[in-house]
């Protein structure tokens, strides 16, 4: 499956089908991430079930603490 993630076309391994799996793939902790798919923000409690489809435009923002 190919998706545009943070502006870049990326080939994802076949087993990644949900937002939760996607975050795990990028090693981003769910609780500190904000995910938008095709300009729709995904509520955190739906990460487990929110499906990803070929061609989706996905934005992932993770919080950091430095300054």
């Amino acid at each position, binding site marked *: 499956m190919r998706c545009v993630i*943070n*502006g*870049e076309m990326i080939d994802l391994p076949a087993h990644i089908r949900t937002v939760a799996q996607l975050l795990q793939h990028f090693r981003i*902790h769910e*609780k*500190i991430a*904000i995910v*938008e798919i095709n300009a729709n*923000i995904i*509520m*955190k409690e739906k990460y487990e079930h929110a499906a990803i489809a070929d061609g989706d435009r996905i*934005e992932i*923002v*993770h*919080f*950091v*603490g*430095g*300054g």
Partner: protein
Amino acid sequence: MDRYSRQQLFAPIGERGQQHIREKHVLVIGAGALGAANAESLVRAGIGKITIIDRDYVEWSNLQRQQLYTEEDATNRLPKAIAAAMHLRAINRDVVVEPIVADADARLLEHVVARERPHVIIDSTDNFDVRMIINDVSQKYDVPWIYGACVGSYGLSYVIVPNETPCLRCLLEEVPLGNATCDTAGIISPVVHMVVAHQTAEALKICVHAQVNRKLVSFDIWHGQYRMIDVHKLKKDDCPSCSERRTYPALQYENETKFAVLCGRETVQIRPAHRGEQEWTTLLSFLTKRGIQVEQNDYLFSFTIHRHRFVVFSDGRVLIHGTNDVQEAKRLYYQYLG
């Protein structure tokens, strides 16, 4: 007379906006890379008053990106708030600059915000414990605050306006652990300036009563990424910080000596429950009598025992450099200063 002419020519500010900026008070929490740059921009812009809180002193490793400081500040180990205030006053003498050398804990922040009622709070801290305190204080006293953070070449910023936007606790279910906040990943100064550019722009908008950006902005200055996300749907009806059932969890005071590892610095900070300037002087003479060589300036004294350097601030806080181990720091603290 024409000090602010270019800024006034910018139509959304104008002469009227400049007058508004002149009447505003901004509270900057943290005087590291983000704090120094935010403070400088706002002081140059002609803000009326700036209060800047920082717990640390200037070190050589700061000079690469903390733009207000000089080699002399590092040599003298000046507290950042003091050094910042000195340089800010030299940049613009019309601005009232109030430095506070202290740890921005719940008690202090609530005290300062309740007393000063700043118009906006700028987050220039390096950890989420303080940010959650800022978040609660902002809600309790109805003062907007501007989150900003960066690591490596990545940064983000977001404006929290009480009763309008989701708060930080709505967006973050839990506080990110050490790894994500640690300065072991390094940082380059251009991303600092990118975060500061967003924070200062939003602060100026708040000052002139313009509409702030409601979106969460994030970017990677090295890899050329930039995005804005509309997060208004994330506002939570049961948020403990901003909903009707709020309890301000970060403002529950604790009365105990606290030990905290300062990320990536091989340093442990100790904040005693009670200790003031008087005890500081007693401590200083006690150590000198024990034959320990103590270096001091007006704000802190330091001494070295084997491979550990102790820095004791006049507000009672202690930094022990050369360890990441809280147990070891506790032992050393009670051995020499307890």
